[in-house]
């Protein structure tokens, strides 16, 4: 591989990922690159090249995408419309869907111990974070819900495996559910 070919590959990779509305998988990139170019080598080089720039290359949802640097968010949000934040109920529902997928609405309700309003599910659907995954073969054939690639993008995850393991989610000592560290009704608090 000549330097010129690699330089061209870098240009192509940058343009392709920049233009795409979804993260670009290495296989998709490979199809656009000069024959014989290793897409991962190009991606690594591109990532290094973009480091520190206002728009950086990140690995997310099984592919690579450009994202604005974190320090620029305050300036951007002054001009670009920011989607409204998900209410606590929606976040909990989303967490249950993420961890229990594919999961039916009655199952979500069982875990939360409360009915799930249609508006909550609608909001998640509208944001493209969850989607239907067929029907459960039980009486009534309830719809099964699961998360989307957009979900991974929203939370900057490479894959669902990057979610914390369930054992890590136990509040301190499992037997004695202590409350001191974290009031239950405080959604805004970042964990740990």
């Amino acid at each position, binding site marked *: 591989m000549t330097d010129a070919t690699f330089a061209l590959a870098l240009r192509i990779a940058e343009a392709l990922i920049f233009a795409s509305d979804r993260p670009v998988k290495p296989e998709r990139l490979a199809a656009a690159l000069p024959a014989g170019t290793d897409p991962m080598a190009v991606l690594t080089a591109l990532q290094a090249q973009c480091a520190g720039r206002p728009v950086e290359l990140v690995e997310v949802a099984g592919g690579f995408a450009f994202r604005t640097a974190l320090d620029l968010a305050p300036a951007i949000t002054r001009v670009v419309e920011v*989607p409204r934040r998900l209410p606590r109920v929606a*976040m909990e529902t989303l967490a249950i869907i993420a961890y229990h997928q594919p999961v039916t609405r009655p199952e979500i309700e069982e875990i939360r111990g409360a009915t799930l309003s249609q508006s909550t599910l609608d909001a998640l659907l509208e944001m493209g974070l969850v989607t239907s995954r067929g029907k459960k073969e039980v009486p009534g054939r309830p719809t099964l819900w699961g998360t989307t690639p957009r979900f991974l993008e929203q939370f900057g995850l490479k894959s669902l495996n990057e979610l914390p393991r369930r054992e890590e989610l136990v509040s301190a000592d499992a037997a004695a559910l202590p409350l001191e560290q974290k009031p239950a009704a405080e959604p805004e608090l970042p*964990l740990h």
Partner: protein
Amino acid sequence: MSDEALTITLDGFEGPLDLLLDLARSQKVDIRQISISRLVDQYVAVLEGARKVRLELAAEWLVMAAWLTWLKSRLLLPEEAEPEEDAELLAERLTERLAELDRMRNAAFWMAGQLQLGRDTFARGLPENLRQEDRSGIVADLPALLRAYAAARRRAIAAKPYRPKTRRLFSVAEALERLRAMLGATPGWTELQAYMPASLVTPLERKAALASGLIAALEEARGGRVELRQEIAFGPLMIRLTEAPAA
């Protein structure tokens, strides 16, 4: 549990399990070890407070109140009077449910703490279309072709109004006219059949024409213009112009 703590926890309440989770947490013990009766007492106290706040929540909680009361009664009963599910098991199951809800809440917190798209970082707002459509090809599969043929034919057939096949019948008037026109040309006896139009092909048409011809011939014979002769039954009918009487 103080009254103050109750007031605070009320804000985030959404349902009975939520409440129970918080009650269990404020006890700081496993539900298996806490006094269910104390839990129920507190629960009822919250319920009474909540009734003033949101009616639909109170309704949901009532279900849990009933469940808790039953659970408590189970725990109070002696062990041998427990034929089906034992309360310990139920309490354990409830504990597991509460623990799972707790885990899911922690997961939600973790997610909220992640760098989020559209809040902390932004994606390309104006993605470009990388698809170039090549519309030169056509979708043309054989089944579609066959369906199209069948559909076109059926439609054409259905569009044609039904018309019963017209029978070419030789009327008596026609037979008479034909007989009069042709008789003069042929002298002597001729078979009546020969005067029938050659265009009649089907046996039915021929028979009908012969009948009309016979009636026409009889009519002419009655007027004395022709003579008829038949040698045997069902034999050929012969016809000739009446020889003009010498004047």
